[in-house]
């Protein structure tokens, strides 16, 4: 009994140990199994994070590098273009002021020593000069006051052909096509500049007008004609309804124009212009001023208008940093068509910078505008 009891006594403590041993084994197994899994998962996660992190970093750096490269390319391209334009400008300008000379243009030389020089040399030279002007006009026409070069070349054509009339038959008929080419180029440049102005125009503001007149009504009067009879007067309509309305204005400023045309010269394609620009005083426009004051003259100019007047360059400076330009659209023996354009100073050429007071006024106006829009937003929110 006692032995059995002893046996019984000794057996029971062994059973929980075996159970515990068998339970521990499962956990152990799990633990043993999970360790490498966790380790490999951790490694995988680290690897994935590393991979994606690396990728992101690479991508970011590549983006940054691309941006830097792009900026560098742009600035280099700009530099190269500026340098090219500078060289081109120098080259064309230096070539432009060389004299057109025949190798031997006197009649005696030709009669004595054969033809050293032919009229074709002069024609070639003129063509090349016009080509150079084309290059200048199309590349620098928006920033350079190029009108004088056109005028100079136009008179050069006449002068050179006339000086070589012994070798160039009927030189006046030869000059015609060269002058036409110059005028066509000028028209092309002017219409390109007009397109630039129109592209940035607020569609609600009409800011141009056309004048058409029969050429013979304003032609240079003959000796037996009264000069005053050959003057054409045009003025924009001063209609109070228009004044009260909001159609005929630029940035809220209403202007009227009085234009007088005379002395239209068909040989040189010029017309004398006298222009008065009238403006409605700002107080009256804002209806703070109830007086009967009408529009006031703010500019009065007399000038000769030809095809070589370009809107971005040859314009009249007005208040509120506005500009007014008048150009010839058509000019022939039948009619003269002019176009007047009013546009903001930001479209004027780069050399035409606003005055300091205009810049300050602009800043103030912008500040007021921002404050007004902020107030309006607040009111909408409330």
């Amino acid at each position, binding site marked *: 009994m006692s032995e059995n009891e002893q046996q019984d006594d000794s057996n029971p403590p062994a059973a929980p140990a075996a159970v515990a041993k068998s339970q521990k084994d499962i956990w152990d197994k799990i633990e043993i199994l999970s360790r490498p899994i966790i380790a490999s998962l951790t490694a995988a996660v680290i690897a994935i994070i590393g991979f994606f992190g690396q990728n992101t970093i690479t991508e970011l750096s590549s983006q940054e590098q691309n941006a830097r490269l792009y900026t560098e390319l742009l600035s280099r391209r700009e530099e190269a273009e500026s340098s090219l334009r500078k060289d081109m400008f120098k080259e064309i300008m230096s070539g432009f002021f060389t004299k057109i000379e025949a190798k031997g243009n006197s009649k005696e030389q030709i009669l004595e020593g054969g033809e050293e020089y032919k009229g074709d040399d002069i024609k070639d030279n003129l063509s090349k000069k016009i080509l150079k002007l084309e290059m200048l006009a199309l590349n620098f026409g928006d920033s350079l006051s190029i009108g004088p070069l056109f005028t100079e070349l136009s008179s050069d054509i006449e002068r050179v052909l006339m000086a070589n009339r012994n070798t160039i038959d009927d030189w006046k008929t030869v000059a015609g096509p060269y002058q036409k080419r110059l005028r066509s180029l000028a028209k092309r440049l002017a219409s390109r500049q007009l397109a630039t102005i129109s592209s940035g125009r607020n569609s609600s503001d009409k*800011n141009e007008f056309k004048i*058409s*007149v029969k050429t013979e009504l304003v032609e240079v009067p003959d000796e037996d004609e009264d000069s005053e009879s050959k003057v054409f007067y*045009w003025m924009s309509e001063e209609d109070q309804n228009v004044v009260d309305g909001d159609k005929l*204005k630029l940035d809220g400023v209403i202007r009227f124009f009085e234009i007088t045309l005379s002395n239209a010269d068909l040989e040189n394609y010029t017309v004398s212009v006298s222009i008065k620009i009238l403006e409605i005083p700002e107080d009256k426009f804002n209806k703070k001023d109830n007086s009967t004051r009408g529009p006031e003259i703010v500019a009065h100019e007399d000038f000769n208008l030809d095809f070589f007047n370009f809107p971005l360059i040859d314009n009249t400076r007005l208040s509120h940093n506005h500009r007014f330009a008048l150009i010839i659209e058509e000019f022939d023996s039948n009619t003269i068509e002019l176009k007047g354009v009013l546009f903001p100073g930001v479209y004027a050429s780069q050399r035409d910078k606003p005055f300091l007071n205009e810049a300050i006024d602009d800043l103030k106006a912008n500040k007021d505008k921002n404050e007004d829009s902020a107030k309006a937003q607040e009111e909408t929110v409330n």
Partner: protein
Amino acid sequence: MVRILVLLITALISHSVFAAGLVEGQWNGKITMHGKKSDEVRFRVRSKQNDDLVSYKVDMFYKERPFKFEKLTVDTKEMKFVLDTGVEYDCVLSLDDKEKKDIEDCKNKEGYCGKCIHSGDGEVRKIIINMLPPLEAPETSEQDDAEAEKIMDPIDLSL
């Protein structure tokens, strides 16, 4: 008898004045410069009545350049003038078919046709000009005024 004679003479004179007249407006035609092929050309004819005399002004537009007919005289059958193209030419254009027959380039041509000659410097240069009157009827002064008014009206007030 005397009255009939006076009437006849008056009628003849008025007929010749009409015949001598150049129609105002745009004429077209051709010009053949010395040693060159013929080319299209445009003319602008204007007239002015001074008492009993009618004076004419003709401008030729060739290669976009105006050339004035200087010292222009117009009579029943022909017109004479000086043309300066850089070289001065003396020109005679005729309406008469007999005269035109003598010039090769003017045979069977309508309107005024003739030649301009420059014979200075030992070289003879020749230009042939043919002037054709406007196809449409000349505008009356009323029509002219109306059109002028139309053109003079401000086309667009856009400022």
